[in-house]
């Protein structure tokens, strides 16, 4: 049933390649919001790439661009080896169904007037897939795969809990057999006690169907749990990208270090490490981002060089990249 079943977990194929991706939004008066401004990374088949960042970092904008909901202002986006800007509309539509997205608010993503079954078959109708009966079968199979009873199919969204609705959204994405799913804050709107069951479901589906995920969230503990690699974004740039263990245990960029130490931890007072690099101020406006390194206005280590030179995207440890003039392999700055 899965078109992606031929992909073994974490082979060398890149499902998505992004090079120097830029997404700018024009404002009145000729200014532009540089939401994403030169980001490069690959997502390998079968892996989960976590993307973390605060509001305004551009992480959701990247996620939308990955599934074609936003057109890049600059740079390239490739699905496998195919540059999607070179495709015709019909070619693109066919390829596009392999790349799905699930959003934060499970309620807003469902039409309140449609039954669950109607919502589930809609993507297949749009793709012109199968017959009425085969679409219904696929929808019910997807429901079961998402851990729901098929009786739910005839209900409406308001009759379901948040966790159930998010399972519906997952099931709906599965109906078109995607290879790749962008998960944009998919557990943020759910209560803590049910988050675990939804995250477990994502892990099960990945194993069964060989899915690849981009997991976008502001919650470091969630990203740490589900991802093999983590990218850290700040003000439209990628600051650090590496294996999850390395980024969490030995963050190289001062921003990552600050982000990790700002996370409130539910541990008793005698086990709490002393607070953190405390960041002053807030994320600057993406209309007029700081020159040089974008983090320099809040960075405790910033120098004159950070003002004038944009840091290179350096691989200073194997598979672990960082955009900071002063980052060192052992995590010291300077």
């Amino acid at each position, binding site marked *: 049933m899965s078109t992606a079943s031929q992909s073994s977990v974490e082979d060398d194929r890149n499902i998505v390649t992004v090079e120097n991706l830029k997404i700018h939004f024009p404002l009145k008066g000729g200014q532009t919001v540089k939401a994403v401004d030169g980001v490069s990374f690959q997502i390998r088949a079968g892996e989960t790439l976590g993307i973390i960042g*605060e*509001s305004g970092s551009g992480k959701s904008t990247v996620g939308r661009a990955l599934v074609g909901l936003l057109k890049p202002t600059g740079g390239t986006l490739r699905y496998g080896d195919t540059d999607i800007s070179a495709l015709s509309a019909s070619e693109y539509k066919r390829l596009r169904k392999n790349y799905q997205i699930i959003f934060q608010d499970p309620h807003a993503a469902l039409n309140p007037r449609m039954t669950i079954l109607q919502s589930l078959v809609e993507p297949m109708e749009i793709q012109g897939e199968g017959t009425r009966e085969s679409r219904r079968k696929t929808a019910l199979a997807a429901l079961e795969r998402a851990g729901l009873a098929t009786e739910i199919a005839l209900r409406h969204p308001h009759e379901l*809990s948040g*966790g159930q609705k998010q399972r519906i959204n997952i099931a709906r994405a599965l109906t078109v057999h995607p290879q790749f799913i962008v998960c944009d804050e998919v557990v943020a709107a759910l*209560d*803590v*006690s*049910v*988050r*675990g*069951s939804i*995250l*477990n479901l994502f*892990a099960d589906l990945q194993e069964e169907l060989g899915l690849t995920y981009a997991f976008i969230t*502001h919650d*470091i*503990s*969630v990203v*740490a*749990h589900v991802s093999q690699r983590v990218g850290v974004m700040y003000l439209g740039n990628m600051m650090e990208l590496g294996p*999850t*263990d390395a980024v*969490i245990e030995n963050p190289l960029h001062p921003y990552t270090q*600050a*982000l*990790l*130490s*700002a*996370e*409130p*931890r*539910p*541990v*008793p*007072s*005698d*086990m*709490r490490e002393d*607070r*953190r690099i*405390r*960041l*002053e101020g*807030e*994320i600057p406006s993406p209309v007029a981002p700081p020159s040089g390194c974008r983090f320099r206005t809040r960075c405790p280590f910033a120098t004159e060089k950070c003002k004038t030179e944009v840091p290179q995207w350096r691989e200073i440890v194997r598979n672990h990249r960082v955009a900071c003039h002063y980052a060192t392999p052992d995590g010291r700055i300077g």
Partner: protein
Amino acid sequence: MLVAKSEQSIGAAALGGGNPAASPDPSHAAPILDVRGLSISFRGRDGITHVTRDVSFQVAPGERVGVVGESGCGKSVTGLSLLRLLPERTAIINGEIRFDGCDLMSMKPKEIRKIRGRDISMIFQEPMTALDPVFTVGQQLIETLRTHYPMPFAEARDRSVQALRDVGIPSPEQRIDEYPHQFSGGMRQRVMIAMALICKPKLIIADEPTTALDVTVQAQIIDLLKELSENTGTALLFITHDLGVVAETCSRMITMYAGEVVESSPVDDVLRRPGHPYTSGLLRSLPRLSDRGGRLPFIPGRVPSPHAMPEGCRYQERCAHAGAGCDRYQQMVEISEGRHARCHKAADLELEGAVT
């Protein structure tokens, strides 16, 4: 005592100065807030919906207490009811709310208005909706102060500038004349805190004050609230779903589930060995940075609807330890000194917390 509070008391407790109420061990002092048997229901088209039942807790002077629970557990409604902010037409409130010796439930609207903002103030999740967009932050601060303490405008303005400075707003002399939309999210929340503190209240009720903020800004606001509460001896009732925030800010944690308080314990104790199976389930559901990959624990099922509450323990359908006796009404039982849980098995259970 409240009504008789003189103008001098605010002058005596100058901003940033110490407050004699901030005793080193607040747990033995007479409570500043004493809530007993608080039950809240709402009248609606389909009859009466019971939202909370028999909620009781105390807050000592200068104490910081966290109220945690998932959406719909009644924590925000409880917070609003303390200042009688629920709609009078539809809300039915029973029980006792005593603040500093006075009965808030029997007060006339005029009397309660004197307490709001002066002795008890409130901080909400979204500062943009709590601040008035058509007045400068200075006008709003000055109005709050002069409503409760008649004083010359110039003096009120000076105090407002100082209040903004105390919450870490740079160049407060200029920013006081700006409008809320000219402030960033974190700075707006600082304005809210300045406004909550300007009359030197004895208690601040903070309802998810950092939920709308980014984690690096949240860290700043948490540190600020903790520091101000320590310096001024202001007690804090911190309503949040974030157990990490409670762990970093509060000394005691009250857990609510389906409209009831199910546990009240010192934070450090509850993180190590919770007394109620629901608290344990919540703590275990948090993904831990140190324990990556693998299966995440979660609580099966969902919160019962207010219209279909089970007899007896409200958590029993989701509880791994449910058994004989759970279908009876559960009292709060003392597990050890200062630790209570609404579970008849609490003393015998060895429950896992956030650390192992």
